[in-house]
C-alpha cells in the first residue's frame, strides 16, 4: 500500500512538474530599441492569447551593445538568449559558423515563399533560412517637393548623381539655413560607410577585387569620394562630419535639407507628426551613374535563434508569430498600415491599402534594386551591398569611415584618405590571411 501511494505521489509530482514546465517556458528575446520592435512588445497580448504556455522576457539594448553581448553569448555558447535581433551583416557570417538554427521547418502558415527575394537571399546560407526578417529597408532619395518646384525643377523617379547635384545646387539657400543635400558624415561602418559603400557601387567601385585585394587606389573610389566631398562641401550643412541618421533626420524634419539620401525607414518619420515638412516630401530611387547600379543599400533587422538556445521550439513559435503575414495584419488593425513593419513580404506590397502610402512603392522598388550577391558593376568575392560580410569588416569599416569623415571635416585630402584606407585595409587583409 505504501509503495503504491509513493508511486502515486511520485507520478503526480512528476506530472505536475511537467505541466509547470510546459506552462512556463520562458524565452529571452534580445532586441534593439526601434519603433517596430517596441510596437511588437505592445502587441504581446495577442501572442499570449495564442500561446499561453510561453512567456517572453525582453532585453532591449542599444545596437552596438546588443551586438557585443549577443556575439559574446554565442561565442561562449552561453545560451542566455533564445531569440536575437541581428542584421543582415551577421546572418551569413554566423550562419556559416553554425551559430544559428535553421528556420526551414517553420510551419506552412509562415509562407517563406512570400518573403521578398532580395531579403530572403541575404538571409539564406547553404539553402537554409537562418533568420526571419522583421523589417527590411533600402535607401532612397527623400526631397522637398516645394523647394524643387520653387527652383523650377522636377525630380525624376530614378535620378542620376548629376541630377542630384543640379537639384542640390538649386535648392541651397544658406542665408535661409537651407542646404541642398544632407548625407551621412559621421564615422562608422553603419554610418558614413553604409552610405559611401552603396554610393561607390553606383560609381563602379568595390571594396575588394575577386582576389580580396583592396581597391581604394582605383579611380572609381577617387571619383566616389570626390563627388561626395564636392556635394557636401558646397551644398551640405555645416559640421556634416558629425551627422549620422538621427542628426540628418532632425535637419530634414525641421526644413533644413532640400534632399536627404538615407534609409527607407525614415519615410514614416519625415512624413509623420513630428515633421514640419511632412506634406512636402517626395521620394525617388537612390541615384545611379549610368553604370547599371544604383547607390542604395539593403538591410533587414531579423529574428534568429542561437544554436545555444535550450528552448528552440518555443523560440520558433515566437518567430513565426512575430514575422508571418498575420502579424502584419495585426499591426495594421491596431496601429494602421503606416506602422506595419515594411520591406519583408511580397503580399504586403500587393495589399491595396498599403499601396496607398506615399512611400510604399518606392520602398519596394529600392529593395528590389539592391543585389547583395552582385552589389557593384564589377564582380566581388563577398556578399553585401553596403558592407562586406566578413568578420573583419566592422573594424575595417569604422577605421575607413574615420578617414573619410576626416576628409569631410577638412583635416585630410581625399587622396590622403584613400591612400591611408588602401594601406590600412591591405595590412589587415594580409594579417587575416585573405591575401599573401
Amino acid at each position, binding site marked *: 500500500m505504501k509503495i503504491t501511494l509513493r508511486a502515486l505521489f511520485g507520478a503526480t509530482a512528476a506530472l505536475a512538474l511537467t505541466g509547470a514546465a510546459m506552462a512556463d517556458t520562458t524565452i*529571452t528575446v*534580445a532586441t*534593439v*530599441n*526601434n*519603433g517596430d520592435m*517596441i510596437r511588437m*512588445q505592445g502587441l504581446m497580448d495577442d501572442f499570449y492569447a495564442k500561446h499561453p504556455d510561453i512567456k517572453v*522576457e*525582453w*532585453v*532591449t*539594448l*542599444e*545596437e552596438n*551593445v546588443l551586438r*557585443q*553581448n549577443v556575439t*559574446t*553569448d554565442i*561565442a*561562449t555558447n*552561453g545560451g*542566455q*538568449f533564445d531569440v536575437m535581433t541581428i542584421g543582415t551583416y551577421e546572418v551569413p557570417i554566423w550562419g556559416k559558423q553554425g551559430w544559428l538554427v535553421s528556420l526551414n521547418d517553420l510551419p506552412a502558415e509562415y509562407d517563406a515563399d512570400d518573403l521578398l527575394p532580395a531579403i530572403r537571399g541575404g538571409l539564406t546560407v547553404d539553402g537554409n533560412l537562418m533568420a526571419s526578417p522583421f523589417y527590411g529597408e533600402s535607401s532612397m532619395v527623400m526631397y522637398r517637393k516645394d523647394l524643387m518646384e520653387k527652383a523650377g525643377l522636377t525630380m525624376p523617379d530614378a535620378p542620376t548623381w548629376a541630377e542630384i547635384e543640379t537639384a542640390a545646387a538649386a535648392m541651397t539657400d544658406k542665408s535661409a539655413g537651407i542646404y541642398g543635400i544632407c548625407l551621412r558624415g559621421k564615422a562608422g561602418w*553603419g554610418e558614413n560607410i553604409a552610405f559611401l559603400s552603396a554610393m561607390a557601387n553606383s560609381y563602379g567601385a568595390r571594396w575588394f577585387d575577386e582576389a580580396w585585394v583592396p581597391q581604394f587606389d582605383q579611380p572609381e573610389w577617387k571619383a566616389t569620394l570626390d563627388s561626395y566631398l564636392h556635394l557636401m562641401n558646397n551644398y551640405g550643412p555645416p559640421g556634416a562630419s558629425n551627422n549620422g*541618421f*538621427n542628426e540628418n*533626420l*532632425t*535637419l530634414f*524634419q*525641421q526644413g*533644413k535639407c532640400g534632399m536627404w539620401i538615407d*534609409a527607407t*525607414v*525614415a519615410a514614416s*518619420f519625415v512624413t509623420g507628426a*513630428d515633421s514640419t515638412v511632412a506634406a512636402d516630401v517626395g521620394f525617388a530611387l537612390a541615384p545611379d551613374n549610368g553604370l547599371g547600379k544604383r547607390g542604395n543599400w539593403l538591410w533587414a533587422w531579423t529574428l534568429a535563434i542561437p544554436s545555444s538556445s535550450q528552448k528552440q521550439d518555443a523560440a520558433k513559435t515566437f518567430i513565426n508569430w512575430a514575422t508571418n503575414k498575420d502579424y502584419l495584419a495585426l499591426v495594421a488593425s491596431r496601429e494602421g498600415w503606416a506602422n506595419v513593419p515594411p520591406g519583408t513580404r511580397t503580399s504586403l506590397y500587393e495589399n491595396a491599402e498599403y499601396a496607398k502610402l506615399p512611400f510604399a512603392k518606392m520602398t519596394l522598388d529600392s529593395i528590389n534594386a539592391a543585389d547583395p550577391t552582385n552589389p557593384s558593376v564589377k564582380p566581388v568575392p563577398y556578399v553585401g551591398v553596403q558592407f562586406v560580410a566578413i568578420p573583419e569588416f566592422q573594424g575595417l569599416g569604422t577605421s575607413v569611415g574615420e578617414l573619410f569623415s576626416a576628409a569631410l571635416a577638412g583635416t585630410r585630402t581625399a587622396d590622403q584618405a584613400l591612400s591611408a584606407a588602401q594601406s590600412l585595409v591591405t595590412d589587415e587583409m594580409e594579417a587575416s590571411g585573405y591575401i599573401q
Partner: protein
Amino acid sequence: MARAVSPSRKFWTTLAAWSVALVIFFPVFWMVLTSFKTEASAVATPPQLFSAEWTLANYQDVWARSDYPRFFWNSVVIALGSTLLGLAIAIPAAWSMAFVPGKRTKDLLMWMLSTKMMPAVAVMVPLYLVFQKLGLFDTRIGLVLALMLMNLPIIIWMLYTYFREIPGEILEAARMDGASLWNEIIYVLTPMAVPGIASTLLLNVILAWNEAFWTITLTTTKAAPLSAFIASFSAPQGLFYAKLSAASTMAIAPILILGWFSQKQLVRGLTFGAVK
C-alpha cells in the same frame, strides 16, 4: 593663524566656484528639462533651453514600457551590496597596510591600482565564462561580487589614505589597555575614521550605481540595474531624446538625492587630512 581674505578675492573665488559648478551641472539641468519636452521640441534647431509646450508624457511612456521598480531595486542591492562587502574586506586590509606595513606594501598598493588601468573589455570573455560556469550570470550576487572586485582597489586606497592620518600612538595605547585586534579596529580605528569611511562608502555607491559595462554585459533580465534601463532607450534610428532623457533622469534621481543629502559628509571625508 588664519590668513585674512579680502572681500574682492572672496567675491572672485566664489564667482569662479559657481561658474565651474554651473558648467558641470548644466548638462544634467538640460537633460532634466529635455525630459519634459516633446520629442520635436527636444531636437529643435537651434536648440531651445525652454520649450513652448511641456509634457509628462515621456515619463508615462517610460514607466509604461519598463519595469522601473525592478531595475531600481536591482541597482540598490548591487550598489549597496558591493560597497558594504568591499568595505568589510578593505577596512582590515587598509589597517594592515597603514599601521603594520611590510616591505612590499607600496608595491602591493601599486599593483592593486594597476588592475584599474586595464580596460574592462580585456577580461570580458573570461569573466563571462566564469559567471556562466558558476551560475552567477544575471544574478544580483554575481554583480555584487563583480563590482566589489572592480572597486576594491579604490576602496583600499581611499581607506589607506585616511588611516594614515590617524596617529598610530592612539592604537598602541588601545593595545596597551588590552584591546584585541578586533576591538582596536571596531572601537578605536573605525570611529576615528568615520568621515573617511562614509565618503568612501558614498563614492563607491555612486561608482557602482553608475557602472554600465559589467552591469549590461553580465545581465539580461533578472538582475539588470538602471544602467541597462537607460541603455534600452537608446535608439539608432529615430528621435527619442526626450524619452531617453526621462529614463536617464529616473535613473540618476535617486543617486542625486543621496548625494545632495550626504554632501556635507562627502566633502568632509574627501577633505579629511587635506589641511594639517
